[in-house]
Structure formats: C-alpha cells, structure tokens
C-alpha cells in the first residue's frame, strides 16, 4: 500500500474528512447558484453565526460523550444572559467583567443542578433536562420580572466584541469561540480528567471499577455544559444587543444537538472529537447563512435540523454495524 493510498483511506475513514468534504461541496453548490456566497463578506457573516453555536456545542459535546444529553441549554443561556443584562442595568458601577463572570457562574450552577439530579437519583438526563428546560425558563421570567433588558443598558464594549477585531478582521467573539474550542480540545485530549469523560461514556459500568468517580465527573460535565451555555448567553447579548426573557435561546438546544451529531459525536457516548464538532458547527452555520441567500424560506430550517439529526443517527448506526460486521467476518475468516 503506497503512502498516498494509505493517506486517502485514513481520510475516508475519518468522519471529520467527510464533513470537510461536505462543507466544500456546499460552498461550491451554493456558490454556483449565488456567486455572492463565495466572498469574504459571506465568510465574515458565517464566522459571526458560528460562535453562539460553537461554544454551547463544546459543552453539549462533552455531555454527549459522557453518554448524557442536556436539553436545558437554551434556558440556561437565557438565564445567564438575563442575569448579565440585569447586572448591567441595575448595577452600572460593577465592572462588566464581574457581571460576565457572575452570569457564567449562574450557568454553571444550573448545569450543576442538572448533574446533581441526574446522578443523585439516577434518572435519564434527557427527561431531567426536559423538566429543567421549563423550570429554568420560569426562573428567567422570575428574576427578570418578565421584563426585557433594553439595548441601552448593554455595555458598548460588550457589543463591540462582535464588531471589532484584534487581528485580520476576525471579530473578538469568533476568536473567543475558537479559543474555547482549543481549550476543550486540550482538556478532552490531553488532560487525564478529560479522558475519563470518554471512558465514562464508552463503558459506564466499567468506569467505577477503574476508580473513575462517576458522580462527580458527571456533575462536572453538566456544570461545564451549563457554564458554556452561560458564556453563550453573554455572546448572545453581545451579538443581538438586548436580552428578552421570552425569546432568548428558545429552541437553541436543537440547533446545538444537530450541529454536534453532524460532527460525528455519538449519542451512545464515548465517541466524538472537537475537530468534528467544530466542522459540524461550521456546516450548520453555512446552511443557516446560505438559506436566505438562496431565497429559501427560513421555515425550512427546522426541517433541515430534524432531518440532519435523523440522518446522523442512521449514519452513526450504520458505521457501528459495519465495524461490528467487519470484526465478525474477520474472526470467522481467520
């Protein structure tokens, strides 16, 4: 086997390569129909569409790798966002960074609560977070008195995070998102604790036998997901310039889950890479930007998300089946 064919076959067997190919194809197809799609300006728009999904996707990815799921991130996002907004409005003397940290901490706390309920009572995370999805949204209305935080209260410097750039015209929030992705990569691939998350998702029964502290680890994963959703809430305030308790983050969980499963993260736990997730987010971001450019109704967005989740599940399943079959065949052939 020559070096080149070996390289190609590794490429084809990597899920990431498949997504990368799809990204290129999508760009070419959309570009062929609407040449404006292939401009730097589009790149900027796509780049701006990414951070919101990407940061939350990092959290959701860790949750999925640990063989759980977090449906409450949309509400957590809204909660952190509204907390930051209220602090900006009512405590103008407090430094912005403190408000931001407080908001992220609130997200972490809600995630922590998810983790505690899931582990303490051994409940399926999907049902627990379906409950907290509603519960946390109620809290958002409660703390905000059902009142929006208007644009005039959002600090200029925060809004400029989405508009100004330190380098190459890449906005701050985009850089922040990729820094978070890089940190997540480092954590999951190079820190022992991160590897334990994979172990937990890969074989939850064996994990405690190997001394992995399942309860604290699970809680940690949910807490990180919550905190990252909280950070997403700050980005949300930065990007849209106001915080509304009723519409902020509604339905966001589906977008993020769709992005993560496109990225090859398995809902069966133990499998998934940061690179894949990043590519999944980029692909979804491109689709979102391409739809209006092509003049397709935004109504199609949900259809695409739903179809993407179902198709990703089927691909995941067929990959698993195929590798199981190949293994069986290899054993019987020998």
């Amino acid at each position, binding site marked *: 086997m020559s070096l080149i064919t070996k390289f190609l076959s590794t490429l084809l067997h990597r899920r990431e390569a498949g997504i990368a190919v799809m990204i290129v194809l999508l760009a070419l197809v959309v570009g062929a129909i*609407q040449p*404006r799609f292939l*401009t730097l*300006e*589009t790149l900027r*728009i796509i780049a*701006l*569409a990414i951070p*919101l999904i990407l940061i939350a996707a990092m959290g959701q990815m860790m949750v999925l790798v640990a063989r759980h799921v977090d449906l409450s991130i949309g509400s957590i996002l809204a909660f952190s966002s509204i907390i930051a907004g209220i602090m900006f409005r009512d405590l103008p003397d407090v430094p912005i960074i403190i408000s931001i940290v407080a908001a992220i901490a609130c997200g972490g706390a809600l995630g922590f609560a998810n983790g505690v309920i899931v582990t303490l009572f051994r409940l399926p995370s999907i049902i627990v977070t379906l409950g907290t999805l509603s519960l946390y*949204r109620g809290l958002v*209305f409660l703390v*905000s008195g*059902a*009142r*929006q935080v*208007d*644009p*005039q209260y959002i600090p200029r410097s925060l*809004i400029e995070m*989405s*508009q100004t750039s330190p380098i190459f015209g890449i906005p701050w929030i985009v850089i922040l998102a990729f820094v978070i992705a890089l940190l997540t990569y480092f954590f999951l691939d190079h820190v022992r604790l991160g590897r334990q998350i994979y172990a937990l998702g890969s074989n939850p029964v064996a994990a405690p036998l190997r001394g992995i502290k399942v309860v604290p680890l699970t809680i940690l994963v949910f807490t990180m997901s919550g905190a990252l959703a909280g950070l997403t809430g700050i980005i949300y305030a930065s*990007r*849209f*310039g*106001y915080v*509304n*308790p*009723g*519409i*902020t983050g509604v339905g966001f969980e589906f977008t993020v889950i769709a992005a993560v499963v496109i990225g090859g993260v398995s809902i069966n736990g133990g499998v998934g890479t940061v690179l894949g997730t990043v590519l999944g987010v980029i692909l979804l971001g491109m689709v*979102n*930007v391409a*739809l*209006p*450019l092509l003049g397709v*109704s*935004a*109504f199609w*967005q949900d259809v695409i998300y739903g179809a993407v989740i179902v198709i990703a599940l089927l691909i995941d399943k067929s990959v698993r089946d195929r590798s199981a079959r190949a293994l069986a065949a290899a054993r019987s052939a020998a």
Partner: protein
Amino acid sequence: MFKKSLLLGISLSVALISGAALAQDPVSIVYIPKNTGNPYFDSLVAGFEDACKELNCEFTMAAPATAEATSQIPFITAQTQRGVDVIAISPNSPDAMNQVLDRARSRGILVLAVNGDLVDNYEHRDAAILPVDFTKTGPGQVELVGSMIGYKGEIAVLSATTDAPDQNTWIAAMVDSLKTNPKYKDMNLVATVYGDDEPQKSTTEAEALLQTYPDLKGIISPTTVGVAAAAQVIQSAGKADEVKLTGLGTPNQMRPFIKDGTVEAVQLWSPYNEGLLAAYFAVGVKNGTIKNEVGATFEVPELGTITIGEHNVMNTQAELTTFNADNIDDFDF
C-alpha cells in the same frame, strides 16, 4: 379547610358576576397581552394602570408564556370564571379564540381587542383599540425612508413572519404607494424577507440583504424585533452611511442606534395611549356614559376626542410618531 363545595362555588361565582354588574363596584379590567416578557406591552399596561388610578377601576394583567395561537385561551376562560367586567386582549390569532370570546361576551363581559384586531372576525369582540389607522402606516414608512435616501435607489423590507397580518397590510400599502405615487418613481423595492420575529433569523436575513444587494440604499423593518436586528447588523458592518434603516421600533429598543447615528429615525405610536384609551372606553361603556356605536364620540384626557369608526374600531392617534435624535429622550417605553 375544605370549606367550599362545588355548589357553593358556583353560587358564589354567580353572585360575584351579578354583583359586579351593579355599578357601585369598581369596574374590573383584565388585560391579556400576546406573551409575557414583551417590552412593548409593558408600556401598554402602564397606560391601563394610570387610567385605572384616575377612574378607580380594578386592573390586572395575565400573560401566557408564549405567543402561540392557543396560549391565551385558558386565560380568557379563567378570567370569565373570575367574573371580570372587561377583557382586553392583544390576540395571538385572529380566529382561534372566537368561541371562548363569545362565551365571555355571553356572560356580559365587554371584550376589547387592543393593539391588534380579530381581522374578519369582528363579531367576536365588542370593539377594537388600534394605535393608528393601519392604512397609513405603510405610506408613512415609505415616505420616511424616501426622505432619508433622497427618494432614489433600491430598498428592501425585513418583516416578521410571512403571514403576519398587520405587517402584510402595511407592506401591501407600501407596494401600492411606491407604484402609484410619482414622488417614489425612482425607488425600487427589491426584496421582502422575513425574520420570523426571532433575533437570530432576523439578523441572518438582514445580513443576507446587505450581501445580496450591494446597491441597497434603504431598509424598512416594520417590526420591533426586525428593526433592532437590522440596526445591529448595519452597525456591525459599519454601513450606516450607505444603508438607511427605518421601521417600527420602540424608543428604548432603538435609543442607542439613534444616538450613535446608525439609524436616523424610526416610527411607532404610543402603546401607553392604547392602554389609556382602552381603560377609558371600557369604564365608560360599563358605566353607561359611552355608547359603543359606530360614529359615537367621547373625550379622553390627553387624547382629545375619540370617534368610534367602522367595525367599532378606534385609534389613539392620527399619524405615526417619529422618533429621532431630537425627541427620543422624551419617551420611555
């Protein structure tokens, strides 16, 4: 503690309903906005509250979580059961509530549509309080954007949802005036896009507009979510000088953009006055001082003489209010 039997409960509620009909008790008004957490309705509620202080009526607000078509129905039924005198509602659907509203009216409750009407279902409410004559909104917006771009060049519309009835009325009127009024002959409506009143979708659509139409001169966004998203996009792209934006937006929502020059002016009406008018009208009808008939007139402090128009519709103001850098700080809603 279990002191009320069902029977007692029924007789009690009957007693309360009939009791309320006697004019001695203060008129009780409940207002059901589209959803909770919508800043627009906060201001409208304030109008109700201030009027009720003046008129000595009892006012409460009950809001569903979402603006979904059915979400207001349990609230209407519950308020009917509570035996309120007046239900004022900003309907989430022009037709899904017909039957519950009829039920309320059959119990002697005055049903008012506020800020939006039950289009083509007028017989299911007693009257409607709308801010302005909606036929004037479209032309008003075209004129405003025209004045900003020198009545020349490409313009686009960023609307709410494809089937939003009010917005569609306005857009139709815009298209009509662009066609018929020679003043606008050099203005060209190149696209109408929809952001679904969601910040994210509205932002993406606004970005796509700038991207697809590089020669675009003006954007009209006749919806508060859309105009805020478009302003944010224009500010981000630094295109305030090239693309002029206007639309319908609340002063609080648009204040930073107007102050920093991203947007010269937006228009709206006073939701506060809607609440005020609704309360005055409701109390007047209940006390017998106002006749709910087409053509009848009555006085409301600060609003002047109000005339009940066709389909029992009344407006709080004749023209849209324009908010710009000079006057925006006079408003807080």
